[in-house]
Structures are given as C-alpha cells and as structure tokens.
C-alpha cells in the first residue's frame, strides 16, 4: 500500500483509497479494505471527480491532514467523505443547497467529526458566515453556469491568502453548444485576477467534458 498523496493510497489493484475516518461505514457502497490497524475505503474515479483527477495525474493535492476545507456542492457526500478522510484532523464545511441530497449528507456528517453540514445556497456565502471560519482550501463542484462567480465570492470571504482552490468544471453546464476546451479556458480566464492557476486536468475518460482546475489565491 503506497501513499501517493498525503492521506491517499494506491492499492494493490492500482486503485485509490483513503483511510476510513468512520471505520465499518460505507458512504456510497465503496469497498472497504482492512490494512493492519486501519481500514481503507476505495475511492471510485467514476463516482468522484477528485479521484478521477488524481488518477489523471494531478500533481498537487492541496488538502492535507490538518486542512480546513470549504466544500461547495457536497451533494450526498461521496467526494466530501474522502476529503474528510484526508483532512482527518481538519474540518470540512460541507455546503449543499438541495434538500434531498442534504438528508443523506447530514447522516454522513454525523459519522465524521470533522464534517459540518450546511444547507444553504453557495451563491450567497455571507449567509453561512456564522457557521464558518477562514479555510485553507475551497473545493467546488457545482454544475451551474455562474460557477466561477460563486467560487470568487466564496474565496473572497473565506479563503486564506495563499489558500488553494479545486474547481470541477463541467463545460456542458456553462454552454452546451461550445467546445469543452474553449469553455474551460474561459473559466480559467475568469479566475486569473484572484488566482494563480497551477493545473488544469482533463477528466476524460472518467467524465466527459469535465476538467479539474487547481489554483492558489495570490495576494
């Protein structure tokens, strides 16, 4: 079992896994692997864009053991739970705006002491300020046309100087008529004022027309 990023392991079958923070518990039917004292959870790239990005060779994974993470678009907690595994001694503020996934997410959060559920619209970040603090990382996976704007608003309020963002872009939800590549480079351009772009990784073949953008908030 090789640790290829902090807290992320490569299993013998060349799959990714994280150390289960809630041993014995599954979040989305993933495989649990016993590894000595600890238990690993397989991290399915078909279900999680972050896993796909790592398998596609993302160089920097800015989430560390003590990171404080604002996770926008946590849905039912599939990826967020793995982020919670990685940031085991940190915190994951998990924002989701829809009721149905939140009822699942809240249960996932209950099992994991570092997760904080927030049922709110990421378009208005000031609303959830009382439940938040400055964070090291913002991870965003929201299929909305104004996703760059949402990220900028949240970064402005909550991201520390020098903090990182991970943005999963789905070009089809921005403009379904244009080529994925040009949509994604437009999104990158929108971020350039506030961020220094580190990497853009295409998630093919795990996700079509998706990319993961990693950037750092530059003063």
């Amino acid at each position, binding site marked *: 079992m090789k640790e290829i990023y902090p807290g992320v392991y490569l299993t013998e079958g060349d799959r990714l896994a994280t150390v289960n923070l809630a041993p014995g518990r599954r979040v989305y039917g993933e495989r649990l692997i016993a590894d000595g004292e600890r238990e690993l959870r397989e991290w399915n790239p078909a279900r999680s864009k972050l896993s796909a990005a790592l398998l596609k060779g993302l160089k920097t994974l800015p989430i560390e053991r003590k990171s404080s993470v604002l996770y926008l678009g946590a849905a039912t907690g599939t990826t967020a739970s793995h982020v919670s595994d990685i940031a085991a001694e940190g915190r994951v503020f998990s924002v989701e705006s829809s*009721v149905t996934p*939140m009822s699942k997410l*809240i249960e996932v959060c209950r099992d994991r002491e570092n997760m904080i559920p*927030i049922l709110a619209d990421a378009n208005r970040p*000031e609303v959830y300020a*009382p*439940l*938040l603090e400055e964070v090291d990382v913002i991870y965003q996976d929201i299929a909305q046309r104004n996703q760059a704007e949402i990220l900028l608003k949240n970064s402005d309020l909550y991201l520390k100087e020098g903090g990182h963002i991970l943005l999963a872009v789905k070009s089809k939800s921005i403009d379904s008529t244009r080529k994925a590549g040009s949509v994604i480079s437009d999104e990158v351009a929108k971020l350039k004022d506030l961020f220094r772009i580190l990497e853009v990784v295409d998630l093919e073949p795990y996700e079509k027309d998706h990319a993961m953008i990693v950037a750092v908030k530059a003063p």
Partner: protein
Amino acid sequence: MTFTIETPAGILQLDEKGGFSGFTGYDEDEAVEGILGRWAADASLSVEAARFFVKGLRRLLEEAGIDLKAYVEIRRRVAFKVAERLLQSMPGADEPIIQAVAILETASQTIGLLVSRLISMCAAYGRAIEAGNGKADVAELLEAAASIPSPFVHGLTAQIGEMMEYRASVESELEELMKARAPNVAGVLGPLLGAKLISSARGLEQLARMPASRIQVLGADRAMFRHLRERGAPPKHGLIFQHPAISRSPWWQRGKIARSLAAKTAIAARLDAYSGEDRSEELKEAFLRRYEAVKKTCQEEPARMRIIRTQKRKGRTRRRRG
C-alpha cells in the same frame, strides 16, 4: 454603522471597523433561532459584516472570552440543528402535492371498491340499484340504499359518505396548495389536473425542465413506448387529456388542442418554478385563442387516416432507445 452577528455561541456586537464591542451568550437553541432568523434573504448578514466576523474570528472569540475549542464543538452541533430545522421546513418542496395526488387516487379507488360492494349487498336484499361513475351518481346511489333496513348497507353507505367527504377536503387543500405553489400551472390546467402533472413529473422543477412535447404525453408512457418500440401511432395526449378542452372535443381536434395546452403548461411551469409571477390569465387567454381557432378551422370530421406501410415491419425491428 455597527454590526450584530448571531454566532453559534452568542450575539456578537462589532463596531464600524469590525472591532469587538460586546457579546451576550445564549444556549444552542437560541443560537439556532438567531442564525435561522438571518437565513432569509431580507435579513441576511451584509457581506461586510460577514467579512469582519470571519477574518477576525479568533481575536473576537478571545475578546468575548470564549474558548476556541469549545466554540468549534458548539458550532458543529448548532450547524446540525440548523440543517435539520431547514430540512423540516423545506419538505422536498413538492412532496405534499405529490402525496396529496396519491391520496386522492387511493380515495377514489377505495370509494369505487366500496360502491361495488354496496351494489352487491343491495342486490342481496333484492334491491337493484343503478351504478354510475360520477360523484352525483354515487350520491344518488347512497340515497337509494338508505331505504334498505340493513346494518351492512348502512355501514357501507356511512363509510362511503365519509370517504367522499374526505376526498373533497383533500381536493380543496390541494387546490390551495397549488394556488400558492404553482398559480400559473393551476390557472392554465386547473389546480387538480395541474397537481397530477406535477406529481407525474415528480416535482414542479422537473416539470419546468420538460419540453412541451414531453408534457403533452406525460402519463401516456405505455402508448409512448409502444410508439417508440414497435409500431403504433404516437400518443396525442397523456394526463392532459383530462382537461375538458381536450376530452370534450372531437377526436380530430384533440391533437392540435393538446399541443397548444401543453405549450402553455410548459411556460406556466417555468414561471412558477423560476419567477413566481402570476401570468395565468394571459396564458389562459392565449390558449383559448388557439382553442377557438381550432374549433373554427377544423369543424369537418376528416376521413380516418389509415397508415399504409409499404414494408411489413416485424414487432421489434424498429426498436429505438427511449
């Protein structure tokens, strides 16, 4: 300009530069109320206040005399309570409508079953009573049965009467709900039929995302798939057929009217889901204009069209992916 912020641990006062100016502690339930009070759009924290609070959090907590570690724990518990409260107050938005439609259907089935038992029971006493379908017919039936001196008959009539009253009360509740949640759809289709469409689409937003052509055949799944999979004409209408403008029109006008009604419904659903503005009158008028036009121009019954197939197709050769 000073700022008041309801935090998980208490009410924090900030001066105009974001400096600490006061703190009053409260318990977690008060915190939930305080934070939720700010959740509404018109009462939310200003971006400025939020920024002061977040950037100065450690210093502010220190000045308020709150232990950071304790605060983090309280905050997590309060966050759960806030989310739980919101989950309760935002019941899957259209779930009540969907459930009410299901209740109406169950109630109607129940009434039907009990009525058929009642007819049999009356017959057992040598009294044939006529069966009908409409609500008025059932009322007549109950009246006729009332003269039969049998505890079985009386029990049944009482149950049927009660179930009908219940169904009527659910209907009027549902009408209110529809007028509040989807005034445009309710206006175009009528509240009950509108509710059935929302229910069939599994929610107003889902309905709003459908093209009119889909709305037109919503509820005609079997006919639609038969059309897609095998031979068979495409359905002209689904649930929408229940609208009197379609069901009371002759067959050759129905398709045209259904198309127009579905188109107006699609617009209505989008208004309800995304704008909230009530423009049902306008939509209804637009539909009626088209309706009148169809009535006028298509008075003659056309000869029934026969679909002539040059090639005989076997059942499943034309299967498409649905």
